């Protein structure tokens, strides 16, 4: 009596797959990559296609006639101003996040004991995941006229920034800060102590060691963090609407045109942040930022 047939069938199948590793690979990757390409990249392609079509001015519906007009519309002053404003905001938020993240990341990576380090990683992770909307909402409470900030500053005769671009800069910095701390911490943790000691042995002071050894070695990690701060700022339409409703940013503008409805124009506009982030990702990959993620 041999083994039951079901089992031998399974064995046979296993052996056959063992002999055909390519096929096994296809079975493993086929479903996830197939779904991703079909749904995600397919959707991006459909959006891209819409940018070449026209909009019926009366119904607002898409007419499938080829045009390049939507791309010419990108050159209009409003769009350029809004894009530049968003880029300046993203850059300011990225720099602020990096400056704030450096001391805490350094402390976590190189000063704290392993136990404290573990606790601090959790302490940084939790606000990152805590409800995004509620974080915005909490800043509405802080920045409002009779909110906490004005209450705390009034004894000094000062006032908070209120709702506007400065407030938005603060809120974005708050929202994306953990995304900068975590890769930076991982990057600083990887610097071998011997390198820092060598720098000191060669006579470098703290500041020189920081500028010429630590900072260059932390670049991939900073770039990795900045992918998040940049992409999240460019793709956000809720935070600007809530904190700086008088000012348009690229996310709001795209959403507004989508809602007109003018899908072809919104699609063409969406290609701008998309192109910026993809370029950014490709450069980041060259700089080794993906190993730092």
């Amino acid at each position, binding site marked *: 009596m041999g083994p039951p047939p079901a089992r031998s069938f399974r064995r046979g199948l296993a052996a056959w797959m063992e002999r055909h590793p390519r096929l096994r690979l296809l079975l493993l990757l086929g479903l996830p990559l197939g779904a991703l390409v079909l749904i995600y990249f397919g959707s991006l392609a459909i959006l891209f296609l819409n940018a070449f079509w026209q909009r019926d001015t009366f119904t607002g519906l898409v007419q499938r006639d080829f045009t390049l007009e939507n791309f010419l519309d990108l050159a209009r002053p409003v769009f350029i101003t809004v894009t530049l404003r968003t880029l300046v905001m993203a850059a300011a938020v990225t720099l602020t996040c990096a400056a704030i993240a450096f001391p805490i990341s350094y402390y976590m990576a190189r000063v704290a004991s392993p136990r404290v380090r573990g606790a601090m990683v959790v*302490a940084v992770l939790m606000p990152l995941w805590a409800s995004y909307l509620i974080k915005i909402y909490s800043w509405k409470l802080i920045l409002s006229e009779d909110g906490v900030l004005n209450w705390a500053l009034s004894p000094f005769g000062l006032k908070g920034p209120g709702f506007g671009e400065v407030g938005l800069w603060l809120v974005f910095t708050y929202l994306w800060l953990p995304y900068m701390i975590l890769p930076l911490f991982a990057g600083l943790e990887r610097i071998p102590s011997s390198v820092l000691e060598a720098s000191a042995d060669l006579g470098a002071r703290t500041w020189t060691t920081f500028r010429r050894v630590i900072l260059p070695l932390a670049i991939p990690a900073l770039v990795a963090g900045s992918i998040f701060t940049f992409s999240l700022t460019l793709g956000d339409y809720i935070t600007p609407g809530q904190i700086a409703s008088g000012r348009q940013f690229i996310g709001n503008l795209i959403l507004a045109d989508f809602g007109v409805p003018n899908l072809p124009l919104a699609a063409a506009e969406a290609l701008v942040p998309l192109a910026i982030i993809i370029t950014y990702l490709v450069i980041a990959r060259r700089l080794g930022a993906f190993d730092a993620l």
Partner: protein
Amino acid sequence: MRYDRAVMGRGRIGRLGLLVATIAVLIFMYLPLSLVIAYAFNKSGTQTWPPTGFTLEWVNAALNNRGLKDAFMTSVGIALGATFVAMILGSLAAMGVARHRFFGRDTVSFLLVLPISLPGVVTGMALSTTFATTDLPLGVMAIIVGHATFCVVLVYNNVIARLRRVSGTLEEASADLGADSFQTFRFVTFPQMRTAILAGALLAFALSFDEIIVTFFVAGGVKTLPIWIFQSFRLANQVALVNVAGLAAILLSVIPVYIATRLTSDSSTVGRT
């Protein structure tokens, strides 16, 4: 002595400065969140600072609010669905990439990370346009599909990190001892992956539960908890409930993440079944 001072954070002053800055950053990160929690129990039910007293009235009101409860349950259901899809697709992709060598291997990670790293407004609009073009309905299923596209990478990253750490030698030993590849998966590979899959799944749940930027485009009238909160921003008579909903939203994203970090910090994965 000389390099003690030169290496940042080793000198006494440098160290103190770092500690102060670190604590300041932690306070900056936690103060706004604790504010919402404080308001959830604020007697006056308005947003004026300081709070006037402690009450459970709003928690009670939130528990009895039909719209809020429905939104909460919808979000839990969607997050479970998206997590399930992400768990399967992410694990499959991680096993494929970790245990095979092939052309374009690095590209797979790059492709999987794209949905989470491209601007949310673009992803949302692309998915919404696609559903409209293909005449597929918006709603719960559309949200699950949308969330799954960017949740996959969370499971994938966790599982692939684990598979890279536990080398393939145990699997080879299993094969040498006569196990076929299904037995090796069941008794060797899967037990090693299990906690990593779970950790990735918890992160996926937290992300999906919290998502609004993409959800907004594909919801088609379905109210998730974030959409309910967002719409209540404008309603003055619901501010007290928003605080409680916020408390719930914070807990349901923070607790899974806390468990996930516990699961992955445990490095002794080999030898436990």
